């Protein structure tokens, strides 16, 4: 029995960054709540299971079946339920990911409880976890607790720090036998977005473009600039909705959350829903022709001008600076 059960995720055989962040948060919470941290790995490969102890898990519940690598609600839900019932934790943490946002509310309901979604901060108060979450498109913050047990919480990527991996720490492994799931909804195929270059969520520098770019061609210029910087290219939802750039590159509340050292926002107005995805960046730099654009209120540096004039000059100035 643990105090906190993290329902983890893996990618290419390794724990995802979000899973390590959840384990970090769980260890900080159990320092106050007492007790252990368990990790459920549904469909995980051996390397991920080995990494779990060093990343902060005391116990790993492993359901290692190749058919479980792809998340499917009907397959994962009964297993997650089985693991929670076996472990009977007080708190269940999931990432606010494609899996977590789908699984958490159904799992919580099945357990007779409720889920608080998309937490930014977690604090202990008595036997409850106080959750600070973003709402109203990022314009407001709400502090909530789940009154029922277990307290199910999904946590926004990059909002929590992982632990420094501790190679001396190992987790006890408990094998979980998958029962026959009734797969009603079936994933029949997957189109992975082409990810050339740096992945958005891992990038130290992100160059993002918005509706003010005026068309899809300008994203080519952004990609060129990103090449100079070793950066990933992101975009606002307005640009994605117009079909100028793929939705997988959308930054924001309903897109990817990034927290790079440098976020360069080009022709993006800085709507709260966009800032929800990049507000955690260490430095935001905006290029916008409107001096009153909201983005400047979040930026460390800004240039007020037409991006079309600034971009070529910026690219060559950067090339010179980085070469020298």
């Amino acid at each position, binding site marked *: 029995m643990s105090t906190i059960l993290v329902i983890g995720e893996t990618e290419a055989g390794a724990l995802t960054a979000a899973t390590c962040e959840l384990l970090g948060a769980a260890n900080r919470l159990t320092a106050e709540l007492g007790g252990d941290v368990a990790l459920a790995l549904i469909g995980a490969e051996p390397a991920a299971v080995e990494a779990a102890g060093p990343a902060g898990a005391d116990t790993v519940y492993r359901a290692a079946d190749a058919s479980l690598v792809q998340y499917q609600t009907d397959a994962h839900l009964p297993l997650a339920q089985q693991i929670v019932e076996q472990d009977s934790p007080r708190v269940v943490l999931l990432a606010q990911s494609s899996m977590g946002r789908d699984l958490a509310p159904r799992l*919580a309901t099945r357990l007779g409880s409720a889920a608080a979604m998309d937490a930014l901060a977690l604090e202990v108060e008595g036997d409850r976890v106080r959750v600070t979450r973003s709402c109203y498109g990022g*314009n*407001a913050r709400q502090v909530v607790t789940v009154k029922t047990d277990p307290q199910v919480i999904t946590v926004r990527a990059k909002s929590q720090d992982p632990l420094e991996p501790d190679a001396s720490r190992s987790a006890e492994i408990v094998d979980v036998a998958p029962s026959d799931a009734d797969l009603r909804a079936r994933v029949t195929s997957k*189109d992975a977005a082409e990810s050339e270059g740096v992945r958005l969520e891992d990038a130290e520098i992100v160059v993002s473009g918005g509706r003010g770019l005026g068309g899809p061609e300008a994203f080519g210029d952004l990609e060129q600039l990103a090449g100079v910087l070793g950066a990933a290219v992101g975009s606002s939802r307005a640009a994605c909705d117009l079909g100028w750039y793929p939705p997988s590159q959308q930054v924001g509340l309903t897109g990817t959350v990034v927290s790079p050292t440098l976020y360069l926002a080009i022709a993006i107005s800085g709507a709260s829903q966009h800032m929800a995805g990049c507000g955690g960046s260490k430095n935001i730099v905006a290029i916008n022709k409107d001096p009153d654009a909201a983005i400047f209120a979040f930026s460390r540096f800004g240039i007020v001008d037409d991006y079309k004039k600034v971009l070529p000059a910026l690219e060559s100035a950067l090339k010179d600076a980085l070469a020298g």
Partner: protein
Amino acid sequence: MDAIVCVKQIPDPETPAAAFRVDEAAMRVLPAQGISPVISPFDAQAVEAALRLKDAAGEGSVNIVSLGPDSARDAIKHSLAMGADDGYHLHDDAFEGGDAWTTALALSKAIQHLGVPDVILFGRQAADWDQGSVGSIVAELLDLPSATVLRAVEGGAGSLTVSRVVGDGFETIEIPTPCVLTISNEFGDPRYPQLRQIMQAARKQVAELTPADIGLEPSQVGAAGARLEMHALFQPTSDVDVEIIEGDTPEEKAAGLVAALRNAKIL
């Protein structure tokens, strides 16, 4: 092809940040001057998805359910003006102060009361509290398969093929009916009602339902039944001071920015 779409009326999520105000003591968002509430944008897309499914099947119905105060009627009317058939308003003081759980419980009971259709549609999240859980809770309560955050929905009664937006691309999912689907903005723009349709919708009756009508006690809904407790609501503050890089030419500004980034050891 019969569908029920659950829709919510909310403060306009495009309200500029400068006009957005919270009453911290009451833990409420204050209505912004001169900005009318709207149907949550993803919910309008869910109505659009239902209408297209009905059109493709050539028969069926699209019914609308909303839980909320008087203003929820406007979300229902908007959906009717888009082309939906009938609207049902879960309207009672007892529903007030609820959370995702009580909302989903009431919606699921209302859906059972109306008869479970082939497909029940939701927005991916209501753009006020941004939780994104009501659709999945309803699916669980009705023991139906679900697919969330969809950009495309095709097929008819029996089986649907849907496309789900995931972090690194899209998944194609085959899902039998009856089922629960939640729709994301990648679905595309919903139709915008014409004046004539708005007038027609204005004349349509919207049936009101109370907890008793759907077999619930007042203690199970609203604040009394809620599983989440709110302790605070506030507006975040940003503490950065922007330095605007000045210059006579774009070249000067660009050079100034690069120098500033190097000085600050960001590059």
